[in-house]
């Protein structure tokens, strides 16, 4: 047994912790998991803006948002499978779900969202093109398209209208489903009464809005990179609209987070003394610099300036790209502060433990990088298979 890192940790604790708290179980993989599911929900909500609320300007990114959502949804359980010590027993969540546990609901909400919402919506959106491609394309692509048609290789206008209507219904059901998919992750943390940093009514709401923020930022980011790689022109009105919604979402999300923090400071319950030590010390950079300044205040200032005073197209494009990156980093820092920050707290309310991020190993930095790259690789495959240009 390698206890080297635990002996090191023992020397670096502050104050008093319960002896069993020296080992922090939920590592960076459990920071990644809410981050990725948040991106799924956020990208889907952006797609719903076009389909349900009929905001025409974001149509160029409709298909891209859906594919992004799918790519990240497929990658979402992988950090979990890396983390639990018996991944082969993971199927027990489906066999004997303990319904009093928020985590047990995960499997079913995931399957519902994957099968009943995302796959159906993407399939209905692309069906006409898939039928056409299944007849024209050869080779492996042709085989995949033939399978995707499920054998129904003809289509007419009546069926197309039906598809559009059915797709709209699915998209409408999809919005609460996406909210549930990520809201329950917030509930997993918010319902733990043992941890005063996590236990909060507003936790699912904060998770939800930060998910929307990160999802919109991701689609902006992917859209700009994709069009740059393909040498295509960017639709500035689409970017402007997405940036507008991003700004609204950040404002709401930031207000909620600050409300939570202010209320904790005002009520000053017992854990408040340790909280001060934590956020002025270990969590200073990730909270004040990354989450608040880079993740919220600077994006609000930049996007707000553009909304009020306008700017040239190239300035806007540059700003949007930088802001989307800042937001993606900021929301990751938000997740880090909640997951890791909450565990640094000792439940004795008298001390703080430490978290050492390993380089190699199942829960280390290299694996985490790989897990962040994975959805982009899947997205690249999906775009190859189902090109994300606007429907003709």
């Amino acid at each position: 047994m390698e206890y080297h890192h635990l002996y090191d940790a023992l020397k670096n604790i502050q104050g008093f912790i319960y002896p069993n708290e020296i080992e922090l179980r939920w590592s960076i993989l459990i920071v990644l998991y809410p981050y990725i599911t948040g991106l799924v929900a956020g990208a889907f909500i952006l797609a719903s803006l076009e389909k349900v609320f009929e905001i025409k300007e974001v149509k160029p990114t409709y298909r891209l948002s859906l594919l992004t959502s799918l790519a990240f949804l497929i990658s979402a359980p992988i950090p979990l499978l890396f983390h639990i010590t018996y991944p082969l027993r993971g199927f027990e969540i489906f066999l004997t779900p303990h319904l009093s546990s928020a985590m047990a609901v995960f499997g079913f909400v995931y399957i519902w969202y994957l099968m009943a919402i995302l796959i159906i919506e993407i399939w209905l959106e692309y069906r006409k093109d898939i039928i056409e491609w299944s007849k024209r394309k050869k080779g492996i692509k042709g085989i995949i398209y033939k399978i995707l048609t499920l054998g129904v290789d003809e289509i007419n206008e009546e069926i197309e209208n039906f598809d559009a209507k059915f797709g709209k219904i699915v998209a409408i059901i999809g919005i609460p489903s996406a909210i549930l998919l990520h809201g329950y992750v917030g509930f997993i943390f918010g319902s733990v009464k043992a941890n005063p940093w996590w236990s909060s009514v507003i936790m699912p709401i904060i998770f939800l809005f930060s998910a929307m923020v990160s999802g919109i930022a991701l689609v902006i980011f992917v859209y700009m990179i994709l069009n740059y790689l393909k040498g295509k022109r960017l639709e500035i009105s689409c970017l402007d609209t997405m940036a507008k919604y991003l700004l609204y979402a950040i404002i709401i999300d930031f207000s909620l987070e600050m409300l939570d923090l202010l209320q904790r400071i005002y009520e000053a319950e017992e854990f408040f003394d340790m909280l001060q030590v934590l956020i002025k010390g270990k969590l200073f950079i990730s909270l004040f610099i990354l989450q608040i300044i880079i993740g919220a205040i600077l994006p609000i200032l930049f996007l707000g300036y553009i909304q009020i005073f306008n700017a040239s197209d190239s300035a806007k494009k540059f700003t949007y790209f930088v802001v989307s990156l800042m937001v993606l980093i900021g929301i990751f820092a938000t997740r880090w502060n909640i997951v890791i920050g909450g565990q640094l707290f000792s439940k004795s309310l008298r001390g703080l433990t430490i978290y050492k991020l390993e380089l190699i190993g199942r829960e280390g930095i290299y694996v985490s990088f790989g897990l962040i790259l994975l959805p982009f690789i899947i997205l690249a495959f999906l775009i190859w298979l189902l090109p994300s240009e606007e429907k003709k």
Partner: protein
Amino acid sequence: MKRREFIKSLFAFFLTPIFKNEIISNLIISTFKYGKDKFGMVIDISKCIGCGRCVSACKEENDVPEVPFYFRTWIERYLIFEDGEVYVESPNGGMDGFKRLNPPKKIAKSFFIPKLCNQCEEPPCVQVCPVGATYETDDGVVLIDKKYCIGCGYCVQACPYGARYFHPKTQTPDKCTFCYHRIKKGLLPVCVTICPQNARIFGKIDDPESPVYKYIKNYPLQVLKPHLRTHPKVYYKDMDMEVR
């Protein structure tokens, strides 16, 4: 007139039960109710000398790794100084005893607090297990099914008392089981048997012959973190207000 009567009767329907005394007195239930036929433990703080024999015996009996990171039971020492500062420590869980510190400040109060799984009657750890790998038996002990556990660690997060740890060999959580393998054979848990001061008292909570019942009936007792409504079944006699 008719509308006013209706609203009055609505109020009466919903609000009357709240103001009936019998319901109010039952809202916060006592140990005599939730301890029916269950095992419990009383820890007499005035007797504990912090020798650490319970920690050592528990580790040996229950195959807990002999490193300072994993404990089914442990001892905390509280030093409350005259200027109000509180110093708490638990070096290796108290297994090798405690050192003489000779602090520069004057001590107003000091004591040892043995801790272990509180075998809560409404265990938050059982509530959050996604697959049903931890459970409470009919006689009140919370156990872990190591063959079914997937190792997600949610129960470790949910325990307010820090009683659970991740066992490095079984790669599942582990915790005090009141030595279930001993008490079902008529023996006592090892920490209770080995204590040189008999500071730990064990038995059925509602059995009038049991020493636990006698303690509950005759002395003021406390539990840890009562506001979390976990209904712990480990009771502390002479526990100070500084203990968390």
